[in-house]
């Protein structure tokens, strides 16, 4: 299984310098806003009725995974900022490079075209995670059913406080302008 769609990895030749410079450059390397905690694990499992005992039964968690862990698919949960924080102004957004690209490329709308995640070391309560965002590709302008736009791919790499690789998320987004815009 390939990590990326080869079609999506062809960079456009008409990009503004600011967008071109972002490609393959790690950006927004930052720690999570709180240590990993089980409350969100229970919320997530409850939201999808996931009864896997490694998340609910300490004895099973100890026997199978060496103690409590979070579901691997929660990786993106941990890097989203709080909706509000003291001193913050404006909307606090995850995946800031995506919103940067929307602005730089003057494409006001966007949707997630595909999402891929590769999972490494399990995330455990008390862990402090760090993420960084890397734009891997920005495609040419093309007509889509939503409007004219570009596909771009952003990796979010996550490590824990021991420097261990926790996983990588690969977001392919379509930024576009609606026909009436």
């Amino acid at each position, binding site marked *: 299984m390939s990590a990326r769609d080869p079609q999506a990895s062809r960079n456009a030749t008409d990009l503004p310098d600011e967008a071109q410079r972002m490609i393959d450059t790690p950006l927004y390397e930052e720690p999570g806003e709180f240590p990993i905690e089980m409350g969100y694990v229970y919320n997530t499992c409850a939201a999808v009725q996931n009864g896997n005992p490694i998340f609910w039964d300490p004895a099973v968690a100890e026997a*199978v995974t060496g103690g409590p862990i979070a579901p691997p698919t929660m990786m993106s949960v941990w890097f989203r900022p709080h909706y509000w924080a003291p001193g913050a102004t404006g909307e606090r957004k995850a995946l800031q490079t995506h919103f940067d690209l929307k602005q730089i490329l003057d494409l006001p709308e966007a949707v997630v075209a595909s999402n891929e995640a590769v*999972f490494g070391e399990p995330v455990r309560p008390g862990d402090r995670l760090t993420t960084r965002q890397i734009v891997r590709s920005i495609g040419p302008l093309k007509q889509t059913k939503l409007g004219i736009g570009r596909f771009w791919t952003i990796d979010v790499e996550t490590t824990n406080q021991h420097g261990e690789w926790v996983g990588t998320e690969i977001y392919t987004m379509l930024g576009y302008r609606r026909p009436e815009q």
Partner: protein
Amino acid sequence: MSATEVCGITAADIAEGQEMPALRHPVSATTIVLGALASRDWRPMHHDKDFAVERNGVNNIFINTPNNAAWFERYITDWTGPKGRLGRLRFEMKKSVFPGDEMCFSGIVRKLARDAAGCHWADLELTISVGDEVRTTGRARVAIPADAADNPWTRKGDRWLP
């Protein structure tokens, strides 16, 4: 309790082409809001119907990306048991899932393999359908224990190759 006592499938229990048991779940607005907030996704199209309709031009609020991933993980590990360890997941939401829909999860084992470190892998093809319409398609790679004594969760570093 020891890991050997924890039940679940092993590599000997599955074959390429095997279908996973279907899972059906009726979706309400609560389903969608629970998933959005649990995944710390505050974007309004996942909790504010007026925004979803007037700004996004869709019928209603809809399931967000990380919650979709959590649903797939639950579907996969319901099948594997606790020792099944997700290595990779990719999906495309071709059409959103809205309140009033009944999601039907299905999956097929497309490929079985054993890597250089001895880990057994199942590559899965996944679908979420509503009625006859495919809403989300995905692929996953999940580590399956070789036998009751094996445990993919013990693999680290060069022994974990998702």
